[in-house]
C-alpha cells in the first residue's frame, strides 16, 4: 500500500493516487490535491465533492449523469470544474476510490 504526504498528513493511496481510506480526507487535503491537478477549489467544487462523498458513503454508484442530476451543477458545468475526465478527477480530490463506472 502506497502512502503520500499531502498538506502535512500521511495518506494511504493506491498506485493511481486514489485514497484507500476516505476517512483520512479533509478540505485542506482536497485543496492540495486539486492544486496538483491544476484546479483552484471553489464552493461549487466543494458542493460537488460533498455530494460525491455522501453518495460513496451510501454505497451508491458514482456517475457523471448523477452529478448532472444532483441540482448542484449540470454536466457541462461539471466538465468546467474538473476539465478532461471530471469524474475521475473529482473522485481523486474527494478522497474516494476511482469510480468503477461500468461494471
Amino acid at each position, binding site marked *: 500500500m502506497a502512502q503520500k504526504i499531502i498538506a502535512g498528513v500521511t495518506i494511504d493511496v493506491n498506485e493511481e493516487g486514489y485514497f484507500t481510506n476516505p476517512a483520512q480526507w479533509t478540505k485542506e487535503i482536497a485543496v492540495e490535491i486539486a492544486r496538483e491537478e491544476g484546479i483552484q477549489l471553489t464552493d461549487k467544487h466543494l458542493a460537488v465533492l460533498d455530494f460525491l462523498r455522501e453518495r460513496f458513503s451510501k454505497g*451508491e*454508484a458514482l*456517475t*457523471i*449523469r*448523477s452529478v448532472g442530476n444532483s441540482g448542484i451543477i449540470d454536466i*457541462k458545468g461539471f466538465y468546467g470544474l474538473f476539465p478532461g475526465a471530471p469524474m475521475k478527477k473529482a473522485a481523486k480530490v474527494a478522497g474516494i476510490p476511482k469510480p*468503477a463506472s*461500468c461494471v
Partner: protein
Amino acid sequence: MKRLLILGAGTGGTIMANKMRKLLAREEWDITIVDQHKTHYYQPGFLFIPFGMYTRQDVVKPKTSFLPLGVNVIFQQIERIDGPENHVVLKDGISLKYDFLIIATGTRVVPEETPGLTGPLWHKNIFDFYTIEGATALAEFFKTWPGGELVLNIADVPIKCPVAPLEFVMFADAFFVERGVRNKVNISYATPMSGAFTKPRASKVLGALLEEKNINIIPDFYLEKVDNERKVLVSYDEREIPFDCLVTIPVHKGDQMIGRSGLGDEMDFAKAHKYTLQSDFFPNIFVIGDAGNFPTSKAGSVVHFQADVLTENLMCAIENRPFTGSFDGHSNCYIETGFGKGALIDFNYDTEPLPGSFPFPGIGPFGLLKETRMNHYGKLLFRWIYWHILLKGKEMPIDSKMTMAGKKM
C-alpha cells in the same frame, strides 16, 4: 392465503416464479406475475441480428411458455408500488395485495435522453441493437452499405451486457472482412470509460484485441449530442467524431414506475442492498437483475446467480430467519471475438476477470480471458441452455458464488 407478487416476467421474474412455485405450498401461497409485454426476447441474441446470423424468430418466444403451472399471469402495465400499504396498482386501476414483492422490471434504453440521437437520421444512419426494432433495421442497412465511418458509441454507463458493444465491433470487423470491404470501413469504438472495459486486466486484453483488429478506441468520450446535419457526435468537452453509420448504446434507465413509487435512484434503478437484494425502503420488497442499482453487470448471468441468493433470502424472510444468502456480484460472460472464436470472463464485486480455465480448474473446457473456439461454441450453446434450463430455474453446474479455482493471479 399469502401472496407473492413478481413484477416483470423477463429473465429474473421468470426464474423466480419457477423457483418459488416449487418451494411454496400451493394451498398456502398464491404467486402472481405481472408484465406489460407478452413476448420474451432472448436479448443476448440481438447482437447476432445485424450481421444476419440470427433473425427475429431465433430470439422470440411467448412468455407464458416459461412460466410454471400454478402462477397467475397478468399482462398489464404497472402504475405504481404502494410500499406502506403492501399493494401494487395496475394501469387499469386494479390493485394487487402482496405479502412479499419481487421487482424484476429490468432496464430500458432511452435514446431520447441524448439530444439529436432520435433525430432525422434515427434508423436511417443511426441504429441501436438493444431493441429488436433497432437490430433488424441495422441488419437491413448493412445489407447494402458500401462502407464509410462506422462508429459505435456508448452514451453512458451502466448498460446491459457491458461486453456486447465490444462483441459488436469485433463482429463488424469479421463481417466486413468476409464481405471484402473491410478496407472501405473504418471502425471506431467511442466510450465514456477510459478503456475497452471497466476492469483493468480485461480492459488490457480486450483493448489489445481491438487494436489487432484495427478498431480505433476513443476513450473518455462522454456524449452530449448528435448533430444530424453534419453527421457528427459531440462530447461534453467539445470533441467531435464524424460518422456515416452510428451504432449507439443509448442511456439506460430503470422502469419509470420505480421512480413514481419512490423506490429508485435518479435513473429509476430500484435501490437495494447489494448483498441481501432487499429493498432499501421496505423489508418485504426484494429486487433482482437489471432493475436494481447493484454495482455489477446488468446481464442474464448475474440474474441467474442472484436468483439462487434471492430464493434463499426470500425463504429466510418468509420464515422469519436472519438472511443466510449473500450475493457476491458474480458475473460470467462469453465474449464473441469474431471468426468463430470467443473469450470468457468470470468476475464479481471484488475480483476482476482473470486468466485461467472454466469451470473446471486446469481442464476447462472454456478458457478465461483468452480467445478460443470452444468459448464461441459455449456462447452458441448458451441460447439452448437459456430457453430450456436457465429460465425454468433448473440446476446448472456453475455455483452462484464465484470461485478462484482455475483462475491465475
